[in-house]
Structures are given as C-alpha cells and as structure tokens.
C-alpha cells in the first residue's frame, strides 16, 4: 500500500551511508521539497545516484546536497554544472563514478527489471572501457555494466492518485520512471494528489505497485514561479 505522508516523514528513513537515487535533470523533474528536507535533516555520507548535478551554477535541487557536503559517493554522467561537486571531486573528498548517460539509465532499468546487466558499445576505446568485462555477441564486442539499485529513491511526478499511480508531465520524466523500479523504498513527490480513477490508465507513467509513499510537493503554479525566477536570474529567460 502506498502511504500519503509529509516530506519530513518521507526522508526520515534515510540514514547515514545509504544509497539514494534522486530523479530529475538539472532541476526539472526533481523532487525539490524532498531534497530540502534531506538537506534540513543533514544526514551524511550518502551514496547518491543522480543522472547529472545541480542546475547550472550550483546550489539548486541536488546541488543543495553537495553544498551541504552530504554526498560521499556519486554515480552520475555529469557534474560540470555543479562547481561544488567539481571542487569536492578534485580535492579527493568525493568519489565519482562517471557513466555515459545512456549506460547510467540502462543500469538502473536493469536493477529494477531483474536483468543481469547492460551490454553497450558506448565508451569503446576510451578510459571508461579500461578494466571492464567484454562480451562478444553475434560477432560484435560489448562492454558489460552491472545493474544499479538503491535503498531509497526520491522521485518526482506531476500527479499521483491515492493508490500511488503516477502521471508525468512535459519532459519531466527523465530518470524518474526507471528509478521508481530500482529502489527498496520509493517516495514520489507530486504537484497534486487526486482520487483513484482521475488518472486514466493509459496516462499512468509509473504503476502504483512501485510507489511506497506519496508526498504532496509544491503545486504547478508555485513551481512555475520558482523556475521563472531561476531562469530569469541565470539569464536563460527574457
């Protein structure tokens, strides 16, 4: 059963050293309220799995976790937008495992979907291929990547019904549907919580059986104001 709880309750299960997946892409589709609570709680030495770092310039969304030095290890494809992650990585305070973005998401899909790994040609001839197992399939060689799983996934959707079915909106799916399947405990932050039946079956992006807890985040209008400020202040919107 999916429980409907508040953000503070939702992150209470996250303890020092745990592996946490956080959905979203440069702020879009990120569970911003849950991240704020995780920062307020201050739990440290997290092993974070997130596709990219903060919104460019740092300090937004997952960028609050790096600024608060709560991450010990990171699996990602890109940290270049987050000066704090780059600084901690270069100083040796943060371990980073870089994966090509397509490999990153497939590893999570494998983790949730009961598959033994990803076979990809991406990265051949580069340093990411060094020391990695190679498997020949039908005469072609592939690099093997193992599945990724987490103790907790914090994800974001547009709406959730009281059963936990999730509907996504716009381009804000990104890593969320894959992460919803790959963690022992999955919390979804949503703009609104609606009655069962309001979200048509064909519009369910993540079925409720994957979702353990639903948290009402900021509504769409509040997020529009927040992102307008962010984009205008960073010169990305006139």
């Amino acid at each position: 059963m999916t429980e409907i709880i508040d953000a503070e309750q939702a992150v209470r299960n996250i303890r020092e050293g745990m592996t946490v997946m956080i959905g979203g892409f440069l702020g879009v589709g990120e569970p911003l309220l849950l991240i704020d609570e995780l920062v307020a709680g201050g739990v440290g030495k997290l092993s974070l799995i997130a596709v990219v770092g903060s919104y460019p310039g740092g300090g937004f969304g997952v960028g609050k976790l790096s600024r608060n030095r709560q991450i010990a290890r990171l699996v990602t494809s890109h940290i270049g937008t987050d000066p704090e992650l780059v600084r901690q990585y270069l100083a040796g305070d943060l371990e980073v495992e870089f994966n090509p973005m397509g490999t990153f998401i497939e590893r999570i899909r494998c983790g949730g979907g009961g598959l033994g790994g990803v076979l990809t040609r991406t990265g051949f001839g580069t340093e990411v291929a060094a020391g990695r197992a190679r498997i020949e399939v039908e005469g072609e060689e592939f690099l093997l990547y193992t599945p990724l799983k987490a103790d907790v996934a914090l994800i974001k959707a547009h709406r959730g019904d009281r059963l936990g079915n999730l509907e996504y909106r716009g381009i804000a799916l990104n890593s969320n549907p894959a992460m919803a399947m790959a963690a022992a405990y999955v919390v979804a932050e949503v703009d609104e919580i609606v009655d069962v039946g309001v979200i048509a079956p064909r519009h369910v992006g993540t079925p409720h059986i994957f979702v353990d807890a639903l948290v009402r985040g900021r509504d769409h209008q509040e997020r529009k104001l927040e992102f307008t400020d962010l984009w205008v202040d960073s010169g990305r919107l006139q």
Partner: protein
Amino acid sequence: MDAREFIARRIAQEFRCGMVVNLGIGIPTASANHVPHGVDVILQSENGCLGLGPRPSRAAADPDLANAGGEPITLLPGAATFDLATSFCIIRGGHVDATVLGALEVDSQGNIANWKIPGKRVPGMGGGMDLLAGARKVIVALQHADKDGDSKIRKHCRLPLSAVGVVDLIVTDKAVIEVTAEGLVLREIAPELTVADVVAATDADLILPATVATIHV
C-alpha cells in the same frame, strides 16, 4: 561575424528536411538559429524529447519543459516527450541522423576528445559518448586553434578520448574537413584564407583535392 557564428552558420547547411538531429551545448545549439528556410529538422534533446521548438516567452515558460542544458524550451506541434531510457535507445540505436558536438581535439583517425582535461576540467561525458557511438553522422564544431594558437585538429588526440573513429565532418572557423579512411580531406576554406594558411594552422596532415571550395555562410 564572430568565429562561433561563422561555424554555426556553416553547420546549418548540413541539415536536410526530416533529419533527426541532436545538438550539443554552445556552437551546435546556435546552429539551429541558421537552418535554411524550408528545411525542417527534428531536434532531439537527450533529456527526453523530439520536436524541440524555440525559446518561450516568460508567460509560456513551463517548469516541466527544459533542454539538456537546463534552458526553458517549447515543443512544436507533433513533438513527443519520453524518459531517458527511450531517449538513449533513440541515440544508441542509430535513430539520430546527425549529431553536432563541440570538441577539445579531433584527429586524423576520426577520434574525438571532448569530455575531460585531467586534473583541470572534469565535467563528465553526459550523453556525449552515446551520441558519438550511435548517431549516423557525427559533425564536430570547434575553433581551429586553442587560446594559445595550438591546432585542435591533431595527428593524434592528446586528451582522453570520448570515442574512436566516429567523426565524419569537422567544421571550424578556418575550414571544413571531411574524415575519410585515407585521412582528413580539406573540402572548404574560410574566404580570407589560402589553402597554405589552413595547412600551416593544422597539426594533422591534410589531403588536398583538386578543388577546395570557399565557405559561404
């Protein structure tokens, strides 16, 4: 016209109607502003859409719509949004006709280095390695020389590689260079330059065909 706009304008001439194109951040993204009239390309963004439109007004900006650089976007009629797994099936699976990416260095074998300078710049590869591995045509947009005047078109890349033997076309502020099995072929040069100027400015050996055209942008 500055060098970046010159390169962006020349790259836009590579686009054909109906092509699925993924543009990297910087000069490649700017090339979308110069697509010839009547040429409709389908822009893919690796964070999950096909059919990227122009930037929105403040009123139309939507917190659930941004490109892979975090900038607000619009979607054109007929656009589709999807998750990252689908997006990278499109990319790796050979369903992107062309990608345009920036680079730190490219070389005679079609190798490209564009993801790190050890100890200095360590952003990560993002979706770049997947695009290089999967796109049907790889166009590289870069200035011919670095800040110290050193050629970025090398005999052999010195920086860590992003992919091996994948580059098809190199477009710089000085030249358009085609990567072939025989080596780099000089196809076009910037209007104010001679072939000798470009050869002198290039670390890699260039194959000189009978005619080298002038870049018109």
